[in-house]
């Protein structure tokens, strides 16, 4: 019987060509969907991890430092380690100015793990060969060429070295500030004096063994590494211990999954499974229904229910066997093509993004598994129906669920559109499924359209920058650093160069205090601070108030605040909310020393003043202390709502948080600021540019910051706008892709139904034609049937899109400051129109393809 079943499966398979084609298409589509989505998902994750690894400088799972040669040998033997690199630090080179170069001895594994394998040339072999980054070679006055000669200078064990080296290979560094130059093991063997292990006595890194490792598995890694450090006779806990060994996990590589992202991903996956369920269910439902007589026959001649089930299951397996691999293949390429677009929009937060994805088995296994599960789920009901059909019923089986009603009010005539409508009722479940899958497409695309349309680009631009351009030091623009120290100041010379450009106008330098300006402090009412702690990086004493707001404090332990010195034009651009709101009058008064303007951070969503940070009211007196003595009293004249540009630049405000913390934002005229601060420094030069000159200025700045003065960076309203546009592009792209896939699934569903209807009702159609229905009328009836699906879906789609729009989407977008909700149904209506057109075309094509031959032939075929 097993053999027989196989033969039967094979023959039935061959018999239903069109049906199988559609089934394979449906399964392929499902696999494409899952693969492209997992590819995009994993690719994004991988690319972000890689980007962060590049920033951190290592893609290892963790690293050990300060080991002796013996300990390193033990480490290599540890069974939880798959790969262990070798790094023997020497020192930073001393003959450099702007680009810092670390000089180490590495092996190839270590070089690979820390992104410094040569992309040109070879790894160093001879004792005098080195590999370095392009930037490093240029810093040393050499060209990035194999065979180039450089001289390196460094100190090790208190001895200065000056060695001529030859470049055996080089690579492009991802950092402008720092890169690695490395020599091979031969260098170590040639210079035993450099590599004496003295770390336990004098903490000199030269001579220690370090190793970046790849673990067999990431689970429990930190514990294992700690134990290993202890096992080799080190102390991983006490930094002061003689035998201190650093053993740390690379958290960039092994980032924990955020729960919100996991939930979102699960929901999305569920939605996809559902959509594909609708599609595959229909395919198999139709297939079984078409064959129902045959299953009835099998049952009469003694096939058991189990055998019928097996027969259909086997067909499903065969079809999946064809559809899934094709889908995986296509899906991977779609996903990979989509990845750079998505990563580009993330690049604002992650500079130097690397966008790539490897065809990892996780993607394919995951997608294949999801597809298989979907196929399994969606075939359950059709299989059950086929297995449970009684032979007699099978022969009488005419698809007509309305047959349960014995009677129905007859209409006067039998008009074609009504007939079409009754035909929909033949299989309610299928009708509902098709309509739902088409509706999903309408709703989804409308949500995407609403999100893209609600993206408030001008708001983002206005928040990031109030002028056409602003130039700051590179640190200020770096989201991880910010303007903190005097050395981050913008050189007056830069301002001179920039302001000399044609078209530059309204330029004004803006001064700001730094962590070094601890002599000037402020005091105001209701301020109660605790003892505080010392911040290791800035050296400031950080004190908290009763609301856990923190304040960077100065020499006299009063808050140093974030204090700006600016010109009237800058004040005029700000958003004055309370007190004196006339910028000119305000500036006059302030310039005469009659008061100060305070700024308060806003809630970005509605741009209202953040009440938690609103600490000083208009009219309140702020006392300025210098060297611990009250210097002057400044009443608050006005209150402004401050944005990213007023605080620092763009959306970064790391600088102010490092300096004044949550302390007041105080804005003073330049003259007063200069009176208060001994060493006033400029952090930003903001300016507008004549429209006609903007391109030139952009080109000038682009060249200037890249080639002339990398210590400087700039932001323009144009680049801010482009960054925001990238988000819109991503939304459109990803949303459009997903919506299209849903739409495609819906249309495939529709095509399947139409084709099946034509094949299955061949006999009925032939009858109608024999009693006088013209082909035109038949076509019209089928168009009506098909269009009813689309009409139903459009109606439901537009209504649900509207409902979703004013509820969930509005709330979701409303909670993100980058968006200003705009209600729209245009995408839904557009999609509906397209669906209606497609739905009108499908039956025409299907009839043309599948309803051929004379009436007699069709009557015969059906019998």
């Amino acid at each position, binding site marked *: 019987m097993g053999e027989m079943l196989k033969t039967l499966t094979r023959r039935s398979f061959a018999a239903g060509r069109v049906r199988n084609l559609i089934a394979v298409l449906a399964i392929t589509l499902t696999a494409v969907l899952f693969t492209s989505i997992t590819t995009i998902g994993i690719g994004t994750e991988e690319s972000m991890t890689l980007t962060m690894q590049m920033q951190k400088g290592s893609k290892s799972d963790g690293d050990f430092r300060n080991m002796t040669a013996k300990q390193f040998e033990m480490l290599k033997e540890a069974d939880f380690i798959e790969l262990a690199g070798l790094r023997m630090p020497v020192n930073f080179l001393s003959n450099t100015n702007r680009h810092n170069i670390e000089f180490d001895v590495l092996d190839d594994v270590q070089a690979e793990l820390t992104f410094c394998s040569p992309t040109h040339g070879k790894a160093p072999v001879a004792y005098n060969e080195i590999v370095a980054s392009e930037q490093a070679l240029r810093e040393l006055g050499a060209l990035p060429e194999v065979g180039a000669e450089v001289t390196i200078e460094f100190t090790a064990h208190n001895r200065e070295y000056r060695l001529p080296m030859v470049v055996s290979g080089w690579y492009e560094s991802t950092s402008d500030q720092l890169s690695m130059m490395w020599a091979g093991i031969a260098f170590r063997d040639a210079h035993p004096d450099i590599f004496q292990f003295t770390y336990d006595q004098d903490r000199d890194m030269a001579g220690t063994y370090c190793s970046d490792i790849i673990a067999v598995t990431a689970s429990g890694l930190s514990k294992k590494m700690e134990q290993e450090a202890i096992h080799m006779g080190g102390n991983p806990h006490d930094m002061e211990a003689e035998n201190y060994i650093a053993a740390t996990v690379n958290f960039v590589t092994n980032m924990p999954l955020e729960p919100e992202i996991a939930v979102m991903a699960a929901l999305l996956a569920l939605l996809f499974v559902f959509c594909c369920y609708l599609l595959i269910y229909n395919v198999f439902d139709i297939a079984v229904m078409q064959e129902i007589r045959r299953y009835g026959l099998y049952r009469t001649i003694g096939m058991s229910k189990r055998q019928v089930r097996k027969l259909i299951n086997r067909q499903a397996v065969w079809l999946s066997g064809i559809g899934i691999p094709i889908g995986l293949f296509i899906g991977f390429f779609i996903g990979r093509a989509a990845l750079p677009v998505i990563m580009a929009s993330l690049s604002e937060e992650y500079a130097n993004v690397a966008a790539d994805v490897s065809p990892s088995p996780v993607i394919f296994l995951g997608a294949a598994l999801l597809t298989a599960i979907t196929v399994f789920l969606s075939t359950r009901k059709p299989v059950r129906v086929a297995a449970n059909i009684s032979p007699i019923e099978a022969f009488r089986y*005419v*698809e*007509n669920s*309305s*047959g349960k*009603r*014995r*009677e*129905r*009010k*007859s*209409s*006067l*005539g*039998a*008009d*074609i559109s009504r*007939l079409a409508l*009754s*035909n929909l*009722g*033949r299989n309610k479940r299928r009708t509902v499924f098709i309509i739902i899958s088409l509706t999903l497409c309408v709703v989804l695309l409308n949500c995407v359209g609403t999100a893209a349309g609600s993206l408030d680009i001008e708001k983002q631009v206005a928040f990031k920058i109030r002028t056409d351009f602003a130039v700051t030091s590179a640190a200020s623009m770096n989201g991880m650093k910010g303007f903190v120290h005097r050395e981050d100041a913008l050189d007056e010379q830069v301002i001179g160069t920039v302001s000399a450009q044609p078209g530059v106008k309204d330029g004004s330098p803006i001064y700001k205090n730094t962590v070094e300006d601890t002599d000037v402090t402020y005091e105001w009412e209701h301020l109660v601070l605790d003892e505080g702690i010392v911040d290791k990086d800035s050296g400031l004493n950080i004190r908290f108030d009763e609301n856990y707001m923190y304040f960077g404090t100065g020499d006299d332990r009063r808050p140093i605040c974030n204090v700006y010195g600016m010109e009237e034009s800058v004040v005029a651009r700000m958003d004055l909310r309370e007190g004196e709101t006339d910028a000119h009058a305000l500036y006059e008064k302030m310039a005469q020393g009659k008061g100060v303007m305070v700024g308060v951070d806003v809630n970005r969503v509605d741009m209202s003043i953040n009440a938690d940070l609103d600490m000083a009211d208009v009219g309140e007196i702020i006392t300025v202390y210098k060297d611990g003595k009250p210097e002057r009293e400044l009443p608050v004249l006005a209150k402004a709502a401050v944005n990213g540009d007023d605080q620092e630049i763009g959306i970064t405000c790391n600088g102010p948080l490092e300096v004044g913390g949550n302390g007041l934002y105080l804005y003073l005229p330049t003259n007063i600021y200069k009176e208060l601060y001994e060493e006033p420094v400029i952090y930003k030069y903001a300016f507008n540019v004549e429209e006609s000159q903007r391109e030139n200025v952009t080109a000038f700045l682009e060249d200037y910051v890249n080639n002339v003065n990398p210590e400087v960076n700039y932001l323009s309203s144009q680049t801010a706008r482009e960054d925001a546009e990238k988000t819109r592009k991503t939304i459109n792209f990803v949303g459009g892709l997903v919506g299209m896939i849903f739409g495609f699934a819906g249309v495939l569903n529709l095509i399947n139904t139409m084709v099946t209807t034509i094949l299955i009702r061949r*006999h*009925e159609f032939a*009858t*109608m*034609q*024999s*009693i*006088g*229905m*013209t*082909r*035109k*009328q038949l076509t019209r009836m089928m168009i009506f049937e098909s269009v009813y699906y689309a009409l139903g879906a459009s109606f439901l789609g537009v209504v649900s899109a509207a409902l979703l729009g004013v509820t969930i989407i509005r709330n979701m977008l409303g909670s993100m400051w980058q968006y200003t909700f705009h209600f729209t149904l245009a995408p839904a209506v557009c999609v509906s129109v397209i669906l209606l057109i497609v739905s009108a075309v499908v039956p025409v094509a299907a009839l043309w393809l599948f309803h051929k031959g*004379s*009436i*007699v*032939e069709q*009557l015969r075929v059906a*019998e």
Partner: protein
Amino acid sequence: MENILKAAGLKKYYGKGDTMVKALDGVDLEIERGKFTAIIGTSGSGKSTLLNMLGGLDTPTEGSVKIGGTELATLNNEQATIFRRKQIGFIFQNYNLVPVLTVWENIVFPISLDGQKPDKKFIMKVAGMLGLEEKLDSLPNNLSGGQQQRVAIARALASKPSIILADEPTGNLDSKTSDDVIGLLKMTSQEFHQTIVMITHNPEIAQMADRIIRIEDGRIAT
């Protein structure tokens, strides 16, 4: 009497070469208006093929069919369909009702397709003669085979066609029911002066006909 139906040199070949089937191989036939003609013959002899040619459901390989002076070959597909629904009523062995339409709707369907208003009085009369008054709002699935075939007959009569072509209309019915159905068919056709051409396997039914034509291997046997 005038000949309403005229076929000359009718040939219908299916397939090519070795597998070619000569379903009809030169049939000449004339049928008088108002007469009841029975076609008999063994299975596969070409009866259905002949009937389909006569009704214009299929086109002959060779030869011509003329109905009431109209040469069917001169009509295109669309015209043939429209001609058919005005002039000819078909009755099939397996009823061929539209499952989603009620009995009434099935009966008036060809008329609606023609964009005409059904002659309600006439159709009620036909329904009455066929005993269908009670069933007009039922759906076909809920009727017995005999009832379904009576609906098919009513449908064939509804547009008052001049010719009724029936292909084994009683093939799926028991003998009592088939007698009833044929009786009704004969009665209504006489009432409305219609011409009937019917294929049957049943000798008793053939005996009721005005004329019997026997088909053997695609030719008329005499």
